[in-house]
């Protein structure tokens, strides 16, 4: 269906969530390459080191040690070379105010971490094609995928 292999970056400090994400990704029909970083500092370091080979999409958790997802998002969107990287926020919070702040800062999609594995698979399956074509770059479309 989607022949292109995507480079996916996940920034999350929760081992379980990283495991679920990997398992969901593995259950998709197409194969992708997943890189995982476990905190904000590590994320920014990785991005700046790989500025020539940026991933197709970043899944970014909010509650992380050292530098949280919101701070990372602000830095990415303020950085000349990083600002076009599609950012999918991936968190447990359901607060609309918080989500609006994230969108205003430059997040492209917001996914509330589901408690059902099938839903997780479905939501990743839904987002990846959009990331592959980078349909977010026009900056007009914002998605809340509230599992």
């Amino acid at each position, binding site marked *: 269906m989607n022949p292109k292999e995507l480079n996916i970056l996940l920034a999350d400090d929760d081992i*379980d969530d990283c495991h679920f994400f990997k398992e969901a990704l593995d259950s998709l029909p197409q194969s992708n390459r997943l890189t995982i970083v476990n905190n904000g500092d590590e994320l920014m370091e990785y991005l700046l080191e790989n500025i020539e080979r940026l991933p197709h999409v970043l899944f970014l958790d909010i509650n992380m040690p050292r530098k949280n997802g919101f701070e990372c998002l602000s830095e990415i969107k303020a950085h000349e070379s990083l600002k076009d990287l599609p950012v999918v926020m991936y968190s447990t919070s359901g607060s609309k105010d918080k989500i609006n702040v994230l969108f205003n800062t430059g997040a492209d999609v917001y996914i509330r971490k589901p408690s059902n594995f099938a839903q997780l698979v479905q939501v990743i399956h839904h987002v990846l094609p959009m990331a592959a074509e980078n349909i977010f770059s026009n900056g007009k479309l914002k998605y809340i995928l509230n599992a």
Partner: protein
Amino acid sequence: MDNTIESAEDKLSIANRKLLFQNEEKEKRAAELSIANKELIFQNEEKEKRAAELSIANKELIFQNEEKEKRAAELIIANTELAFQNDEKEKRAAELIIANTELAFQNEEKEKRAAELIIANKELAFQNEEKEKRAAELIIANKELAFQNEEKEKRAAELIIANKELAFQNEEKEKRAADLIIANKELLAFAYISSHDLQEPLRKIQTVVTIILENENKNLSEKGKYNFQRMQLAAGRMQQLIDDLLAFSRINTTDHQFEKTDLNLIIEEVKNELRDTMQEKHASIEVTEICPANIIPFQFRQLMYNLISNALKFSNPDIPAHIIVTAAL
């Protein structure tokens, strides 16, 4: 010519005879006049006598006349004086008439006024009596009021004491209320944080359950699958509770969100959650005449859950429980 002489002789003879006759007549007349003269002399004498008498009388009269003229002069003076006095008196009389008229008018006015004053006086006398009666009543009322006043002052003194006590209690209560508000905020913050923290491991349990159900489906027995489903339901129920707790902790920051909700759905959810207990108790739920209602869904779901689970909990175990849910407006 003869005739003429004869006629003249005739005429002279006739004239002579006439003269003779006249002479005779005049002698007779003279005799009569002599008599008349004598008479006149007598009368003259009489008249002289009378004149003498008259002269005397005249002198007397002249004297009298003089006297009278003196008297008249005096009278004229007196008269003039009287006339003057008369004038004065007439003026005075005229003045008096005017003054009199004025007095008469004033008198009338005064009589009218007096009549009015009499009426007014009677009225005042009446009012005075009334006022005296009223004054008497007021004195009585006043005494009563003075008594009541004293009572009220006593009561007021008691109330002041009671008021101070209440003010003190009030202050204490305000302090307590302030403490409670702080405690309440802390509790809500605690509820928010703890439920948020509880959510994470629960979500993971749920995810793992769904992974096992999906990936290990063929390795599980039917009993195992059923038990996993029950675990999934219980976890769902717990998630619902945590969500509700989160929503509740946000109550004082956000408004109550009323939603038009189908009560059948809510009761159906509650029934599913309570299925095990219902099977144990052989219970049945009968739902009649339920309509959509404007409610806060999570609070209403909790209410229905509590009501139905209590109904099951306290039902007679020997008789199958039959729960009827009905609605009325």
